[in-house]
Structures are given as C-alpha cells and as structure tokens.
C-alpha cells in the first residue's frame, strides 16, 4: 500500500466516514446502462436494433432524398443562402450542418447495427436480428456512397474514393475505401440479409426489402441483368399489392395500424404520430399549404411538361402559383400531410428498374410489361412491344423522373447514365463536376482522409 493511501485511511477514519473501499462507485443516471451490462436479454438486443431503425428513419425520412434531389435538375429553390442552397449551388462545404448532420445520422445507424452484429455470438441476439442489422448497414453504405462519392463507373475500375466502410464499433483515423470496395461490401451485406431475413417482418426489414435494395444497387452499377432479376422477383413473388388507379398510396399512409402487405411499399420508414413523425423534413421544405411559399419547388419547364399531358394523374401533385407572374412557380404537394410514411423501396421503383433494365438487356416484352402498369396507373396509355428499345428506355426514364419527383432518384439516374458513357449535363454542368458530390463534415479531416474537392461547380 502506498504511503499516501495510508494517509488517506488516517484521514478518512478521522472523519468517521463509512467507506468500505477507496474506490468511488459511479452513480449512473437512472435511464442509462453501462456498456458491459447493456445487452442482457433479447429485448435489450431488439431495442438496440430498434435504435438502428430509428436512425435509418432519421436519414431516409426525406433527408437523403432531398439532398440528392437538390443536386439534380428537378428543383428550383426559394432563397439565396443557407445549407440547402449550398447543396443546390453544388458548393456544399464542410461546415454545412445539414449535409454533415445527415451524413452522421447514417453512420449512427451503422454503429448500432455493428453493435448487434458484433454480439452475434450472444444467445439473446438472434440470427434474424443480425440479418436485419446487416440490411441496415448495407443500405446506409449504399446511400452514403451514392451521395458522398462519384458514382459507380466514374473510374473504370471504381478505384476512386468512396466512403469509409464501418464494420466495427471501434474506430481509428482511416482513409476512404474505394467505390469498388464499398459496393462489394454493400452487395455482401444485402445478399446475407436476403438469405437470412424472413419474408414477413412487419415494418422491419424482410428478404423482399433486401432484394429491392439489391435491385437498386445493381441498377446503379449498370448491372441491368441482376437489377431486372431482383426487381422482378419482388414484383412477382412478393406479397405487395399494386393499386392500379391511385399513385398516391405510398405518400399518404401513416400509422402502424395498416397491414404492410396490402400496399406497394416494400420497405417503409414509418411515422406513428405527430411526435414520431419521419416525414417532417419533406413537409418542411415542400409544403404548399404553409403560411409562406414553399422553399423547394419543381422547375418551371419540368412542371409545365408534366401538366402538359392532361391525362397524367400525377399532374395533381403540382400546384401552379402566381401564374403568369415573374415569380410563377410549381409547388409539389406530395408531402403536404402532417404525418406520413416514406416508402423507401416500392413496387413503383421495382417496375421502373425492371422496365429500364430489361430494355437495356434487349428484352422488349418484359420491359413493356413492367413499364405499362406505372403508366396505366397514371392515366396514360402504355407502350407496346412494337416500340423501339430506345423509346422504351427514354420513356422509362421519363416515368421515373415524374413518379419520383422530389425523391432524389433523378440525380442518381443522371449520374448512372453519365457514368455509363452518356453525355449528361445538369443545370449547365457536367454530371461528375466537383460539386455533384456532397462535402464531408469538417470532423472527418485527418491526414488519412481525402476530403472531396473544394469549390463546387
């Protein structure tokens, strides 16, 4: 015993303080649990998994969709400064709180998933929990790499910088993985999820959700064969219901009372009430019923083009305001509901992936068969198998643009086509100019980590 400990005893005895040990026991706040004892029961593990879903909902509740959409050519913006203006101006910098904050949210979802996966050996952690965690981890990496790195195909071997792959709860200051590595990781995660997830799991991840995510991933990778296969699998074999007349289903449903299989949503971020609302970001930026004019609007040429076809039921999503004035604009009312669910993967997306992919593969019949349900539902007449492949592809792309206006698909499509060799210009700049990828937050800076190029475009 050190001499000063002896002194301590003298002092403490003199004080008559009852102290069994010199070690001071920490007093932990009542709602907190030390890491060592945090996961004791299956319920604890489930709650940890819920926390990963919670963060997933916090970046897919319109946040990533909007960041992507701002980089594309669907929107115009009401304002001249602010975080989202920076993104729209393709000059997001490392202090952009929206960009950095939403980036962090996805990695928090990943950390929680990693935490479950690391504990796979525990009895209380079921195989299904691990599969769900790997789905969430794969999905987050896919969405991160699509926004913070140049797209798949930007370099021939995809050796360009991607994002940091996080598959552990420890961290060190590391470099970015290549895009090839990130996609390989996402593929592995989603395939594991596909093989190990149940077909039915309420609002949570299912094998169908994994297949849908794989379809989206392969589509982005120009792997149209696999994209078509997975999309078709979901359409044909999944339990989801296609509403042949109403295209609004996936935006308006809310609450956890509905039977997921009754609708077209394959994987949904769910809002249960005003205080558990995962669509506020959308509504905050687009709402056409708010006191002031909406911050984000559809560009005039695009809005006019949609409304030009009077048969297209989706024209009802647009509200032309101040018609004829210099400040005429098209508001988007898809996201006006106080509370709504967000369909992250939907049958609509699967049909349109399948249509374009089959066409790319030269399969006219399947392409048309997958494109027409979407067109017919919108009130348009479909294509026929007699149409040229090029027409089918362009029509599928146009349908994707209309169906998903406001949801970010357009930007990823522009990058997909650009990286596939097409000449793509976005609001006057190349699809792969510097500002078309978001900047990382300042916290990522280290000697190992290459930030994205500065200055935007």
């Amino acid at each position, binding site marked *: 015993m050190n001499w000063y400990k002896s*002194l301590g005893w003298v002092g*403490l005895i003199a004080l008559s303080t009852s102290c069994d040990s010199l070690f001071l026991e920490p007093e*932990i706040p009542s709602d*907190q*649990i030390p890491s060592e004892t945090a996961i004791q029961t299956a319920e604890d593990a489930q709650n940890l998994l819920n926390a990963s879903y919670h963060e997933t909902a916090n970046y897919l509740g319109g946040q990533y969709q909007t960041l992507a959409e701002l980089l594309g050519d669907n929107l115009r913006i009401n304002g001249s400064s602010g975080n989202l203006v920076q993104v729209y101006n393709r000059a997001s910098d490392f202090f952009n709180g929206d960009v950095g904050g939403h*980036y962090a949210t996805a990695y928090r979802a990943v950390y929680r998933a990693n935490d479950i996966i690391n504990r796979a050996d525990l009895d209380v952690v079921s195989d299904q929990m691990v599969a769900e965690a790997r789905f969430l981890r794969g999905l987050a990496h896919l969405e991160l790499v699509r926004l913070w790195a140049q797209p798949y195909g930007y370099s021939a071997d995809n050796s360009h910088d991607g994002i940091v792959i996080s598959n552990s709860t420890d961290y060190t*200051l590391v470099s970015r993985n290549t895009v090839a590595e990130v996609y390989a990781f996402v593929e592995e995660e989603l395939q594991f999820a596909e093989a190990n997830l149940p077909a039915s799991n309420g609002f949570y991840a299912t094998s169908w959700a994994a297949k849908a995510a794989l379809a989206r991933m392969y589509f982005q990778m120009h792997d149209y064969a696999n994209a078509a296969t997975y999309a078709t699998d979901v359409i044909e074999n999944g339990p989801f219901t296609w509403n042949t007349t109403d295209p609004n289903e996936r935006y308006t449903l809310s609450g956890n009372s509905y039977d997921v299989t009754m609708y077209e949503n394959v994987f949904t971020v769910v809002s249960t009430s005003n205080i*558990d609302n995962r669509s506020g970001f959308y509504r905050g930026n687009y709402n056409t019923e708010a006191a002031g004019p909406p911050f984000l609007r559809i560009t005039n040429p695009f809005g006019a083009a949609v409304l030009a076809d009077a048969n297209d039921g989706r024209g009802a999503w647009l509200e032309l305001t101040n018609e004829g004035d210099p400040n005429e604009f098209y508001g988007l009312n898809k996201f006006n509901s106080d509370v709504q669910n967000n369909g992250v993967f939907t049958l609509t997306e699967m049909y349109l992936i399948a249509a374009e992919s089959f066409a790319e593969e030269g399969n006219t019949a399947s392409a048309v068969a997958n494109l027409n349900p979407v067109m017919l539902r919108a009130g348009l007449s479909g294509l026929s198998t007699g149409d040229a492949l090029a027409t089918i592809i362009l029509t599928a792309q146009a349908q994707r643009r209309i169906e998903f206006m406001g949801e970010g698909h357009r930007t990823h499509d522009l990058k997909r086509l650009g990286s596939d060799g097409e000449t793509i210009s976005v609001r006057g700049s190349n699809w792969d100019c510097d500002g078309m990828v978001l900047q990382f937050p300042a*916290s990522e800076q*280290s000697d190992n980590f290459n930030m994205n190029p500065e200055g935007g475009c």
Partner: protein
Amino acid sequence: MRSFLVKAKALWMLVAFCGLSTAVLAQQTVTGTVTSATDGSTLPGVTVRVKGTGQGATTNLDGGYRVQVSGPEAVLVFSFVGFEAQEITVGARSVIDISLSEDVTALDEVVVVGYGVETKRELTGAIAKVDGSTITNTVTPSFEAALQGQAPGVQVIQGSGVAGSGSVIRIRGISSVSAGGDPLIVVDGIPITQDNFLTTNWQNGAFNNNPLASINPNDIESVEILKDAAAAGIYGSRGANGVILITTKRGKKGAPTFNFSTRFGISQPVARPEMLNASELLQLLQETWENDGNVGQPDLGSYGINVDWATADSISNATNGVGTDWWDLLTHNGFKQSYDLSMRQGTDLIKSYVGVSYSENGSYIIGNSLERLNARANLDIQPIQSLTIKLSTSFNRGVNNRQRVSYTGGLGDAMSTALPIYPVYEADGSTFWADGANPIRLRENFRGLSIDTRTINNLQVAFRPIEGLEINASGSYDYLDFSNEIWESAELLNNENIGDGQSVTDKRYVNNFNGNAFVQYTLPFMPEGHSLKAMVGGEYQNSVTKGREDLIVQHVSATPFEGGAVDSVVNRYRFIDNIVRQYSSAFARINYNYNQKYFLTLIGRADQSSNFGPSNQTAFMPSASAAWVLSEEGFLAGNPVLNFLKLRASYGILGNSDFAALQWLGRYRFADINNGNVGYNGQSLLEPQIIPNEDLRWETSANLDLGLELGLFDDRITAEAAYYRRVTRDVLMQVQLPQYSGFGSQFDNVGRVLNQGVDLTVTSRNLVGEFKWTTVFNLGRNYNEVLDIGGFSPDAVSGGTNDTRIIPGFPVGTNYLVPFSHVDPATGRPVYIDINGNPTFEYNEQRDRRAVGKVLPDATGGFTNTFNYKGFDLSALFVFTIGGNIYDSSLKRQTSVVTDWNLRRDVFDRWREPGDEAQYPKLSNDFAEFGNDKEWLNTDQWLFDASYVRLRNLSVGYNLPTSILDPIKIKSARLALSGTNLLTFTRYPGIDPEIARDFDSPTDRNMSQNITFLTPPQEKSYNVSLSINF
C-alpha cells in the same frame, strides 16, 4: 456573556488607571480615540508612548486613551501589531483622535493557505491576498469582479453590465480546454458549488447565471489567491487552475461594535453603439438597391424588412430623420442601493460576527436587476483554552430579474433587427407593432426570473491537547437551490387560448457535503534554530446536483410567478440526470525552517475522483518549495537600502478533473416508451451514448515558480516578482470524432498546453506622514501555447457558438479565419487572401482559414494610487489589458452585407464608385458579391486589438472627525463617492473592449473570451456610500 464584558471592561479600566497613576507629575492631559483606517473600528490595546520618556498608556476596549505629557512639544507614538506606527506632536490639543493604517507589508501578516495559516515571512508559494475592504470599496455586481486589477496573473473579465452576469477568472493563463478552467473557490474551507447552470438555454437571455452573485461582499474578511504549486498544492488534484480562498469575517475580542453601511448609485452603459438613424438607413438601403442593379424605390420586403418605403419614410420624417431610438427606449439610469448591518464582539468564551445585508443592483437595462439578501453568523466558542469550536452559517438569496439581450432580443435587437424605421406601436397607438423586431413589445411580454437560494454552513473543531499539537475536524454543507422561470404572454406566443401566457420553469438543487480532518504538530525539542511542523489530513466531498426541467404551465389569469390560477400543465417536469461528483483525498504538509531564514515546504496530496474509471481514479500530486530570506544573512543585515529580500522556488504537480461526469464509462440510454419516450414505430430504443474510455485520466500540470520578494528603504518600496512555467499534460478535450465512428464527440486526454510568464507587483509608499500617497502596480504577463493535440485537426475542438480553435503552436482560443485583404477599388468587392497568399474574391473557409489572432491577452494588470490626508482619502484604480484580439462577430452583419439588420456608422467608410479606397466593401444584398452564398463571412476584418486601459474605480472618502461623532455616540463614519468604469482608452471600435459573452460549455468558456455578438457593454456607475461604526 454580559458579565464577561463587564469584567473585561473593568480590567481595561484598571490598566488605564495604572497608566494614569504613573504620570501624575505631568502637566498636560491628552485624550482621544484610536481607530483603524481600514474600517473605522476602534482599536483596543494600542500602545501610546510619550516619545523620549518611559511614560505611556494602552487604549481601552473602546479604543480610548488618556496620557499626561510635559507640554506642547511632546510627541506621542502610537503603535500596534499589524499597523503602521504613527508619531504626532501634541501642540495645543487636548484631544487627539487618530486612525492607524494597517501595515500591509508586515512580514507577520497572517495569510490563509488552505488547512491553516502562515505568516507572510514563512510563505514559500505564490499567494496574493486581497482585503475585504478592497472588495467592498469597488462597486461591482458580484464580489469576484472586484478582484480585477488587484493581483498579478489574475485575469478577471466581467461578463457585461447586465445585472446577474458573472466574471471569467483565469489565473496565470489557461491550461484546460474542455475541463473547467475556473479556479477552485473555497469559502471558509469548503469548495463551493460554482457551476453555470444556464448555458444553452436561449430563452434566458444570453447570459450565464453567476453562482457567486449571491455571496455578500461585506462578509468577506480576505481573499487569498493561490497561484503556484507550493500554494495550491494542498488542493492538489483540484488546484491546477489556481485556488481562491474566501475567508469570512469573524468576531474580534472586544465590546460589541456595529457597522452600518449603505450605498446608493446609478448605472449607465460605458458607451452606446453607433447605429444608423432612420434617414441614414433609408439612404443606404437606396444605395444597396441601386448597387444590386435595381432602379426606383427599394422593395424593402426583399431585405426581410417589414415596413414599406412610404411608412419608413414617414417615420423618418416625423422624427427629423432619427426614427425610433430603440437603445434609448431600452435603457435608463439604473438604480442601485445596498444596506448592510453587522456586529462584531468577542469575549474569552465567545466571539461572534453577525451580519445582514440587502442590496438591489439595477442595471442600465430597463427591467434588469439583481436583488440580494444575506444573513451570516460566525461564532467562535472557546469553552476551554485547548478547544475552539467555530460555527459559520450563511443564508444568501439572489433574485435576478432577467431581460433578453444579445442574440435573444432586447438590447441585441437594438443593435441588429430593430430598425429605426420600425414603429413601437401600430398607427392607432393601441397595440404594439409586431411585424418585425420590437424589443419594447418583447420586454412588456416577457419576464425572466432566476432565484438563487444558498446556504453555506461549516462546523469546525480545533483541539489542542498538548503544546504544539492541534487536531482539526470540520464538516460543511453547501446547499444551492437555483430556479429559473420565464414567462411569455399569449401575445408573444401568438396563442390566444392561453389568457395570461405561459411560463417555463427549470430547477437545480445542489447538495454539497464536505468533511475534512487534519492534525498539525509542531515538533518540540528541536535543536536551537530549527523548526518543524507537520500536517496530515483527509477530506471527502460529495456533491450531487439534481434537477428538473421544462415545467410548462399555461395561465388563464393572475400574474405570473404569483401562483395564480393555472389553466393547464402543458409539460410536466422532466427530471434530469443527477450529476454526482465525489472526491476522496489525503494530504500532508511539512514545513521546516532554520532560524526563520531558510524555509522548506513539502506537500503531497492524493485524490480520488469519481470522474475516472477504476484504473485511473487516484492521482498523487506532490510539490516541494523553498524560500531563503537573504536579508537575515549577515552580509545584508543593517543594509540601509535593502531591508528585506527573499528568494523562493517551487515545483509541483497539480491536477484537474472538473469536467462532465462519468465520461469514462461507456453506456447506453434506454429510451423507454413506457416512460415518456417516443421510440421508433412505438418501440423502445437502446441508444449508445458514450464510447467507453477507461484510459481517461487526470489532467496534470507541472508547475515551476521562481520568486523574489523585496523591501527597500524600510519597506517604503516593496516588490514581488515571479517567473512561472506550467506545462499541462493529458489535457482533457471533448474532441469531435470522425462521424464514421458513429459518435459525435468524446472526452479524451489529448495534448499539452504551456503557460509561462511573469507576475510583478510593486508597492511604493511615496509619501508617509500626514499626507500619504501609496502606489501599487501589478502586471501579469503570460505566454500560452498549445504544444500538441494528438493529431486532431483544428476543427476537432471548437468553442460552441463562439468561433475559436485549438491549434498546435498557437494559444488556446485561436481565431482561425479567412484573412481579409482589402476592398477592390475597381469593383468594391472584398478581397481575401487564399492559402497560397494570393488575393481572391472567393471566400473559401475550407481552403483558406488560418490562425490570425488570439483571444488571450499578453498581459493584464492594475495600477492603484491612494492618497490620504487627514480624514480624506482618494483612490484611483486603473486596470489594463495588453495584446490579444477581440472578434466582433456581429460586425459582419452590421456593415456592407445588407439584410434586415441595422448597420453601424463605421459603414460610412465604404466603397461607392470605382476608384474608391474604402475600409468596407460596397453595400449589397447579393451575398455572392462577398465571395460566397453564405451570409456570415468569418474573416479577420472583424478582428481587433483588445488592448485597453480603464479607470475601473475612482473613490473619494472622508472620515468624519470624532468631534462631530462623539456627541452622537458614533465611533467613526466614512462618507464616500465612487465611480466605476469612468474612462476607457482603447483602439477597439466596438462598444466595449471587456467581453465575456454567454458560454455553451466549459470548452466555450475556456476558448472564447473576447468574442462579442451584440453583447451589452459594461456598466458605468456613480455611487455615494456611508459607513458608520458605533
């Protein structure tokens, strides 16, 4: 007790009689009263000697004396331990009242050192002592602000002139980053609660609460500031940022004496901002409009300005172009008053000090004040010679009426969005205009109230069973109840359904227990000349902060705060996590000296803190120090110039563990849906909160101090100089993690910080005798450098809403900004310097920021001149700061970037047409013209030299003569006029160079002094005070 007094009086009369009887042959009788020049109290036991004779007397309990002298040529010599002796020629007088000045340089002066006292001669460490009277003589909102300029190396920045705002105190620089950098504050032996509870609470009006504001300055006997390892070592692991020991007044032996003090004063801002008036603003808006390529009248709406041009123009015209002077409407002459009554008495059995006090400190902001109510009783009971029981108890209540300031509105609006072209009322005069910022409407529809109730209690027992041995045990209890309420009207909340508005209440309760025991033994039978004293002890402290937040109540009727009818509780209290801080400590001190010439002190303290994990809970902090009184050596004895010379040196380790609790322990938060949490999809969550960091350990500082103390010409000039060097290792920082870690930040021991510098004090008694002039000069020079931050980027640690950084090679709190070069004469656009040194129109933070300034000063100090003549005294304290920068963070919106803000008159020096060489760019609402689509461009154009000199305190006092006072049974009375912050000399163009705005966190507090954002200026006050002893 009364009989004791009678006996004591009888004894003194006997002594006086004896003195009388030995002088029966003298021809002239002189009587009088001897008082203390410090507080006017009478001095019993003063020796009154007739020079050149063996005759004399001693003053009685009431300070009275009577001597016989031979004639007018006789000289009386008054002497008393601790006071300067004084000689007076009798002349024709038969009554000679005299006041003795305390002998401040006396080597026998007692200094409180922590777990004991030492004489100044014995000290081997760097301790600055400030008397209670110095503190009460400077009118400040809270006692700690009065320490400014009083001790070298002690930087005090008063928050602002807002009543209730606190000060930032830094001792010998700053070595902590995310752990608290404030000195440990110990009142009568107990480290008291000193947390700033109000941090990010926007609605409280943008200033932190001051936990020290409720302490009564009149109760303070002395303040000792422990600066080096030798001094602070006894507080070991908690002393790294220095220690401030506050000792309260205690009873003195003698008949009861009473003091009544009262003060009245007014408060004004030291300066007012120079904002545009209505006609100037309209003119500049027109220019902006045209600069941006428009023609005709500006569309004010496009700037976010909510009146049309015609209305604005009519408001301007109706007031000769002045418009609404919001500053004028929001400020007034604040009224201050204070009343303090205390009693001191003492017998052999019981000595007591009892005091009550009330003060109201109204600031220059209408509706803002701090009321303080205090009561204190300190009893010393000595039932037997060997036993002393000291009981100290105080009750303090501070009521702070808050107003929103700075970025939360009020006076902040007057400097930003409350435009001179906005009206106060709607055209019909019946209701407030509410289409834009209207701080008058805000004031009438908002109330903020924070109430501090605290009691500090201490029971101390000292037992001296045998000669040389003293056993001490003490138990203390410091309770602080802090309540903060804000109320907003239905109108302000734009909610017609809530009648009389809505209030939100937060509460904190701190139970802070401290117990210590120590044994001190002076070894007997030491060889001739050697003296050895040992002290060993232990201490345990347990502080638990509980809290509740966000009680939201909507009122249907009755006045808020008065418990009126309540319509509905919108939100019940949310209980916040308890914050538990525990320390368990053992300490020892050995004092050795040889012939009062060579001194050696060894200190060791071991502490355990609950803030660290099992492997790092205990830290041992040793220090060693020595002093050599050279003037006692033969070769200097009797030197006509140098009468005292002491060298001292110390080295030791000090620690700091004052940071957010339990950061080492990895943990999860259970967001239970059955306990009010939302969860996801109706399910509970288990959310990772803190990454475990079992390596987290004490922040330690290695301190070297070399000092020299000097007395010249019989102490007419005394000086103290010290060099210090402190290297702090394992600095606790809350570092931003890369977000791919899945966490935002983490506390870790990162890096090293250096502070080194010189402290200097010179006291010169330029004139002594009847006309006295004393000059005290002190200066603390500090050099601060971050040596290492473990490879993190400059953005890994930042000061909250303020904008400073930690960068190796630069000081803590470095301004890291894009450099501004000049305004381009051709285009009027600002030109920046890019990272390669080339001029650019582009504002690029990511590429071009660099270290361009620092918030820490090079030196701070004070300069006091005191004059005494007969009953008059005059004292002037100048304080100064040399070096460092002020970042005027709001100026970027008050000059060329035209929005819905008013502009400062500085913008008159702006570019207007090609060829203009101007300080500010052209006016524009197009942010891209300034190089980026951001509105807030942080450049060194807003960075200024922070140096200033300020006449902090000027006071003139007059001690009324006893000839007036005697008939009305008053022993002494002093009437004084004083003013604070009367003059300021600075090159800073903003309102006030003394800035400590609100802080979000300890990190912010350490890094972000001198950052201003619409911060209200300090107050200037004029006061009259009266102090009566009877």
